[in-house]
Structure formats: C-alpha cells, structure tokens
C-alpha cells in the first residue's frame, strides 16, 4: 500500500523536476538519467549478491534458531546438563555463526563497493552539471540564481528517479511475496478437494473398514514402510495391532486417521474410499490417542473437550476423566478441572507426571467419542494398576465402535477380537490369541518372551 503511494509520489516528483530541467537543458537530463541508471545497475548487483547469500543466511538462522529454542526447553535442558552437551551446542552454534558472518561480510564488501561506485557516478553527474551550468552562467545565458536552483533540482531529480526505480523493484518483489502467500492459501489436497463428496458420514453405527493392497512410502525414503496391506475389519470389531519397533504400526495409524494417503491401494469405509470424503467429515467420526503427548496451555476441561468452555459438556468431561482413571487426581488439583496445563507456558499451570498426561490424552479421545477409536500405545507410561484398569474398561469404552489398539503389552490382545502382527510393513500373522499361540510363529515367540517372567516356571529359569 504505502509502496504504491510512494511510487506515485516519486513519479509526480520526477515528472515535475524532469520537465523543469528538460526545458532548460535536455543534455543535463541525459547525464542525470545515465548516471542514475548506472547507479541503479550497481544496486541490482548488490541485490543479486544478497539473493545469493540469502539461502546460506536462512539456513544458518534456522539452525541457530533451533539451537536457541532447544536451549530454552526444559526437557532438553535436563539432557544437556547430564550429558555435558553445552559444548556441542555452542560448537554447532559457532559453526553456523561463522558461516553466517562470512556471508554477511561478503554482503558488506559488495555493498561498500557498490556504494562507492554510486558515489563515483554521483561525482561525474555533479561535476558535469556544474561544468555545464557554470559555462552557461559565465556566458550569461542563465542567471546565477537559476544555477543554484538547477543544481538543487539535478540532485532532486536523481533522488526521484532512484526512488521510482527502487519502488518499482520493491513492488515487484512484494508481488512475488503475495504470490507465495496466495499459493500457500490455495494449497489444496493435491487437487482432490473438488472431487470430495460433501455428504455426512453416518457416525452413529460402527463402520467396517477395508484395506485393499495398501502401500505407503515416506517422501524421500527408498523403501515402502507399509507393503501391500489387505485387510477387512468388521463393523464393531476390536483389533489389536502388534509388531516390533519400526514395523509400521504408527504409520498404519496415520493412514487410518486420514492424515496420510496410501501411495498405492485404497482404504474403504463402509465400502467407500475414504479419500472421497472431505477431511472434516472423516475426522468427525474419529477418536485417536497418538503416541506422542501434546497438551495445550489451557485448562484441564478444555484440553479434554477440545472446545471452548461454552461448548463443553462438563458432565461428559468428568465421565471421560473418570474412565481414563484420572478423575480423582484432577479433583485434588488446586483448581480442580479448571487447573491449567503446561508449566513451560504459564506460571499458574500444574506439572502432570508422564502417566497422568497420557491419561489426559485418553480422556480427550473418550470425550470426543466417534465410531472409530484408534489407540496408539495408550498405556506405555501407565502403572500396572492403571493399565489393568484400562483393559478392564476397554469393552465398555468400545461399545458400538470399531477399534484399533496398538501396543507392545501383549496382555492387551486378550480383550481384542483379532490380532494383526505387522512385520517389516506386511501383515505376517493374524487371528485370535489362541489361534496365534497354536501357530507357534512370531506372535507366540513374542508372547513367550514377555510372559516368561510373570509365570512361576519362567522366573525360576533366571
């Protein structure tokens, strides 16, 4: 906006001064134009140099920023101190800093050079103008007062001209920014948005799900993380997914949640491809507990309901907290359910233990409800009693819901209808606990490893 105005002001100034000078002597006008354009070319050089350095600067700033943010984080602070990593931090900071300094030095050098070049051009312009005007004045062709006026105008004209050219460049640059901005706003879902049916999904009843030859590959990765998964899940079925670290369980969760799209194959919800639904419609029926814990610096109530206070059903919040086994703890908090979370963001917040945070995440999923429940290691940080509690309540929680329970705790499989064992991105085994145990395959092996120490005979072996 302001640039546009400035452009117009410069244009008017230029026309006025240019006409005045041009009427007096077009030769001076020519000299001014030439030297100003020369000066402009020099600044183009500078701009280009800056552009070349920009990538380095952005990269350095990003890295330095990362280090600063981590340095401020309390979680990192503990690690940093025990492992004496402060030296590593300042070393990495120094290397980015030095690279950044080399870059800024280069810019400063080019800038000094370009500016000196401009001064040289200004010298030529000034001397030529004076030379010409003094000649005219001595010859009596112009008044001495006019000479003062003209020298002032020449300087003024070159200022207007530079301003105008500068504004034009700036307007163009801003245009590019705006292009980026609008491109970002328009970021569609790979052009599929238009195809999406806006129809509502029936979230009342538990849906059935079908995976048809689903494969998934992370961007830039050489190998598929999930390979050719074909699977039918009945409406209301309780599925357990197990497998070793890195087998693809969490990736499967992301596909199920509609956050990733399969690279090949389709996922059908009640027989319809889930990519046909709009994200909002699909998400509306989902309740997910992700592996990583993310809480907002707002009250417990709002963290659980995910909505503003006015749209929160307080009874339901209490019920969900109770179900997740954290009801009593919350009641004992200084401000009860109104207690805020995230001590790193606010002074009045309370610090919950790892297990308590995980229970809060579970309460959040239970509050939302929905017809498809996905739990990704929801008991990893829970104590045995709390874990057992969840298992016991699982049937109640999954009433009329199709559910997925991902866990390394194989006890969790006993209350699921079917177990899927993933290995290296494929379904290696599936069936009930009894079937898989009878098969004596990977599941059997895993179960034995885990149960060894819990059974009397196993403990004696140690």
């Amino acid at each position: 906006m302001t640039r546009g105005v400035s452009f117009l002001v410069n244009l008017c100034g230029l026309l006025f001064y240019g006409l005045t000078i041009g009427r007096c002597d077009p030769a001076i006008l020519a000299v001014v134009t030439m030297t100003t354009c020369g000066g402009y070319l020099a600044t183009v050089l500078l701009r280009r140099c800056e552009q070349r350095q920009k990538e380095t600067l952005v990269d350095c700033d990003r890295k330095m920023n990362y280090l600063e943010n981590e340095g401020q984080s309390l979680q990192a602070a503990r690690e940093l101190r025990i492992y004496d990593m402060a030296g590593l931090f300042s070393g990495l900071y120094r290397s980015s800093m030095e690279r950044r300094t080399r870059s800024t030095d280069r810019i400063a050098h080019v800038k000094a050079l370009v500016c000196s070049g401009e001064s040289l051009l200004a010298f030529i312009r000034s001397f030529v103008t004076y030379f010409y005007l003094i000649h005219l004045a001595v010859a009596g062709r112009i008044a001495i007062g006019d000479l003062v006026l003209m020298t002032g105008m020449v300087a003024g004209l070159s200022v207007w001209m530079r301003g105008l050219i500068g504004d034009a460049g700036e307007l163009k640059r801003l245009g590019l920014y705006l292009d980026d901005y609008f491109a970002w706003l328009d970021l569609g879902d790979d052009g599929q948005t238009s195809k999406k049916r806006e129809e509502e999904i029936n979230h009342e009843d538990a849906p059935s799900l079908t995976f048809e030859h689903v494969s998934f590959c992370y961007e830039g990765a050489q190998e598929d993380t999930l390979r050719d998964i074909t699977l039918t899940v009945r409406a209301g079925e309780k599925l357990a997914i197990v497998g070793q670290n890195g087998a693809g369980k969490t990736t499967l969760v992301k596909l199920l949640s509609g956050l990733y799209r399969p690279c090949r194959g389709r996922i059908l919800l009640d027989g319809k491809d889930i990519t046909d639904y709009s994200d909002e419609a699909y998400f509306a029926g989902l309740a997910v507990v992700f592996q990583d814990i993310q809480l907002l610096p707002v009250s417990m109530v709002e963290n659980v309901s995910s909505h503003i206070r006015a749209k929160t059903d307080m009874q339901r919040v209490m019920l969900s907290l109770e179900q997740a086994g954290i009801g009593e703890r919350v009641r004992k908090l200084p401000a009860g359910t109104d207690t805020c979370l995230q001590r790193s963001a606010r002074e009045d917040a309370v610090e919950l233990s790892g297990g308590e945070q995980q229970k809060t995440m579970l309460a959040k999923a239970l509050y939302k409800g929905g017809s498809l429940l996905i739990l990704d290691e929801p008991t990893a940080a829970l104590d045995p009693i709390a874990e057992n509690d969840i298992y016991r309540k699982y049937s109640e929680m999954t009433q009329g819901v199709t559910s997925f329970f991902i866990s390394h705790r194989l006890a969790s499989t006993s209350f699921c209808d079917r177990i899927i064992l993933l290995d290296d991105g494929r379904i290696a085994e599936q069936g009930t606990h009894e079937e898989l145990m009878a098969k004596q395959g990977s599941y059997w092996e895993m179960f034995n490893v885990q149960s060894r120490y819990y059974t009397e005979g196993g403990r004696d072996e140690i």
Partner: protein
Amino acid sequence: MRFDRDLFKKTFHSFHEVSPWLFPALAGENFLLAVRPFIVLHFSAAVVDGLYRGDGEAQVLLQALWLSLGVLAAEAAGHILGCYVEKAGQRLYVEQMKKQLEKMTTMDYQLLESGRGQELSASLKRGRFQHGDPFDKLIRYTRDVLAGLFGVTAALVYLARFAAQKLAAGSGAPETFFMFGGFLVLAAGGVLLTVKNGERHNGQRFARFGKLTAQNRLYGFYRQNVFQNYKYGKEVRIFDERELIVEEFGKVQRANRGFIKGIGKDEGSFKAANSVVNTFLSGIACLYVGVNAYHKLISVGNIVKYSGAVAQFFTGLTRVAAGIADLRGNAPFLRQHYEFLDLEPEEARGGRKRVLPASASVELSFEHVYFRYPGTEAWTLQDVSFRVSQGDHIAMVGQNGSGKTTCIRLLLRLYRPEKGVIRLNGVDIQEYDIKEYWRLLSVVFQDFKLFSFRLWQNIAGSGAKREEAVWKALEDLGMAQRVREMYAGMDSYLYREYDEQGILLSGGEAQKLAIAKALYKDAPVFVMDEPSAALDPVSEAQLYEKTNTLLGEKTMIFISHRLSSCCFCDRILVLKDGVLLEEGSHEQLLQLGGEYQKLWEAQAGYYQSA
C-alpha cells in the same frame, strides 16, 4: 535522567570485545557523513560568490571540482568505514546471541525453570521479535547521536564564523550577541523538549513491554509448540480444535493488539511532537537569516550557506535528541540481556567444589528427604530414606504420580530436597562440584530428547567421536544394522529441523538411541526412567537381560511399570503418594502382600492365565 554507568560499561565492553575499532569506525563514518553537506555548502557558496564577483571560468570550475571531489572522498571513505561497522555489528549480534545460548545451556537448572528464568528468556525472545535486536539498535541509535553531534558542531562552527564576520563588519555587537544567544537558547529548549518527550515515550513503551511478559510465554508456546509443530497438526485436525485455539490464542492476540496499538499511538504522538518543535525552530532561524538577507546584511552565497547551516543545525539537533531518547528506550532491552547473562542462583550451588574421591566405589543414600515443587503445597516426596550400595541394581515402582521421577530429579541435582539430605559416599551431594558429579551418572530420561544433530553427536555429546565405542553401544541395543543402512551411517542427521535429509525415527528406535547414549557414557551409576516404554517385547526383554550383564558391576536405579523387569533387581522400592512404602526383593514383597503384590497381580494376571 539517570545515567546507568554499569550498563554503559557492560555494553562498551561488549563492543570492545568484538572489535576495539568498532566505535572509532562508527565515529569516523558519521564524521564524514556530517561533513559532507558542509563541503557542498561551502563550495557551492564559493561557486556562487565567484560568479557574482565575476571570477574567471577556470577558477569557478576549480571550486566546483573541489566540491565534487570532496563529496566523493567523504562518501567513499564513509562507505569503507560503514562496511567495517556493518561487519562488526553483525558479529556483535551473533556473539551476544551465543552468550545467551551458552548461559541457557549452562545455568543452574532450577533457575532456568524458575519463573524469572523462563520470563526473562521468553521476554528476550519477544523483545527481539517486536523491538528488534538491541545491539543492532544500539549501533543505529549511536550512529544517530554521533551524526547529529557532528552535524551540530559543524553548523555551530559555521554560524560562529557568521557571527564573527558580522562583528568584524561592526554591525552592532550587542545585537549579534543577542541574536546568537537567542538562537542557542531556542536550540537548547528544543533539545530539552525532544529529550523530555522521548523520555516519556520510552517509559511508556517499556512499561507496555513489561505488561506483556506473561503473554510472551504463551505466545511463544503457541508459535513453537502448536503452530510450527507438525506433531500438533494431527490433534488440531482430528479433534477439531480450531475454535478452541482461535479463542485462546485470540486472548493472547488481543493483549498483543492492545500493545501494538498503544506502541503505535505513542510513536505517532512522539514523532508528531518532535516535528512540531523542530519545524518551529528552523522556521524562526530561517526567518532570521531571511531578515538579514532582506537588509542586505549578508551576500546571496551566504544565504545559501547559512540557511543551509541552520537547517543542518536543527536536523542534527533533532537527531541527537531523538537518538538519545532511542538509546534510553533501548537500554531496558540491553539491561534485560545482561540481567539474563548475570543470573545466578541465590545460593551459589556447587560453590563448595569438593572433588570426587578417586575410588570407583559409589554409595548413595537418601536420608529423610522431603520435596515439593515450587508453588505447590502438598509434599511430592515425604520422608524418603533408602540406601544404594555399590553394584546394587534397584527398581523403583509405584503408581503414576507417586514421586518416582521426582526422586530421580533430586538425585540428579536438578532440584534440591527441601528437608533431608542425599549423600554420596557419606557426603551431601550438593557439596560436590556439579559437573564432576554429573560425570558419575548415565541417565535415560522418561521424556528423553534426541536433537536434530548427527547421530553420533547425540550419542557422544560434546566429546570427541570415538567411533568404535559408538558402534559398540549401538550394537548392544540392536541398532547397529539400522544405523549402517542410514544414508551416512552414524554421520546421518536425525529428524528434519537441522538437515532436510534427516532420518525420521520411530518411538522405539528413538528410545534405543537414548539408551545407547547412556551406555556410551559408561558412568558408574546408571539411572533409567522407564527405558522400555516404547520398546517391543523382544527388545524389552533383550534390554533387561543385556543391561544386567553389561552393567553387572555398576550401580543401577531404574523405574519401570513393567514389573517383569524387577526380577532382575536386587531390591525393589515401592513408592506411594510420595512415601516409600515397601522395600525388598521380588519374592519378599510378593509375600508381604501389600502394594507391590497388588501391582504385580494386575499385570501378571493376563500372562499367567494364558
């Protein structure tokens, strides 16, 4: 108008540290810039006067040449000095940022976590975002003051000559003194007004920043952990949290908008008031020169010269005044920076730098330890006492929130007990030099953190890269194969923040690396807080079996909810609500039939019936 000598000393020291020539170069650059208009004034007046006198063309041209050359020389020299200042300025900025980072990574943990520590670091960050870097500003405002001062001085010299000429011409000495004196009084008044105005303005400005500190932390949290954190993206979408976040962040934004509006309003009225003063004074001065010219008291060339000089005088004066006001406004931001760098815990911890005994034997004891987190009333730990002898493998179990992690944090000296002591070989752990003390500990945190650096850097920390030891640690955790397959082996970057090629790890893989890091450190005491939470059953069993043999001789304390792992321990401590309830071996505690048995049954049931 208070002058903060201490702050001045500190900033001067920072300048000097980067380059002893930074200030002289800055002064030189501005001297040249200030002189430049007077070269123009002087020689253009000479040209005009020459023409009036009817000097020869060559003579007048020579003056014009001097003019152009003088300007060129002043400008070129100014650019060279400016280049130096710019380079040094950038260095000053990064150097101070580095100091902040170093302070953040080395200062007392509890101090960093304290309200003041968090507030200051958030406010520094916010200040840089909204106000700009205070050191960059410092250079800029110093430049304003210097340029203004030189301009004013040059103009005064010029005008004094004018006064002297008039006196020499014998045109009423008293009158000239009166005029010149009046001129100075006007000028002084102008400066005073501008500075006062700036004072008030800056006071308001920093007060506005001050009111924002609580908002700063929230604002920073939303920016970093919600908006820029792709991990948060899934929560927002699946749980449709847009409205909540818009509402909550809206509150922060409203506070901000009030702040920015206020700042803008202050700024506007400040600048407007300054322009009024400045324009009024130049107007009077020009009127005076004009009256003199009308009465043919000065030549036409002199009109050019003196009206220009008067204009320069007032421009310079406003620049000085505004520059001083800006410098004073910038001072709180600088003060904040130094305050952060100078933060020290009230009681200097690790002040008594007792050196650790050379003997490899380690004996730890908690003696009636009480602790509660700052700002809470209920005890998190109450009268906890236990002893860990050299080579003991101890498990700590208990329900969520029973105080296990807090015990570990006290042991690590991240917090101090409120009552009671923790001893190492009979001496209060607070008495040891903290860095040496930490060298005794290999820790796997529950919320461990891997950085987006190279894999080996995560494992080896600040130390040198001992490749074989890194491979060995990876081998022990079964991660060696996975690492060998990475694009650059142990030189590969983790995650994407630092390098776009970085490797994304699954939860279990990350946990294995966190353990590998502890193994690599190979300290006499191992502390592991739920090291197997994200591991699959096979990896988990391997971990406990392996650590048992790997750490045979070492002391180990670990927390686990997987009670099967307790079978490997010599002793189990059972905590409940911050109290140490039971202590003994697995068999003893099962027989006791208390809390431990309850926990065990809850977990073992499924495996036994199967």
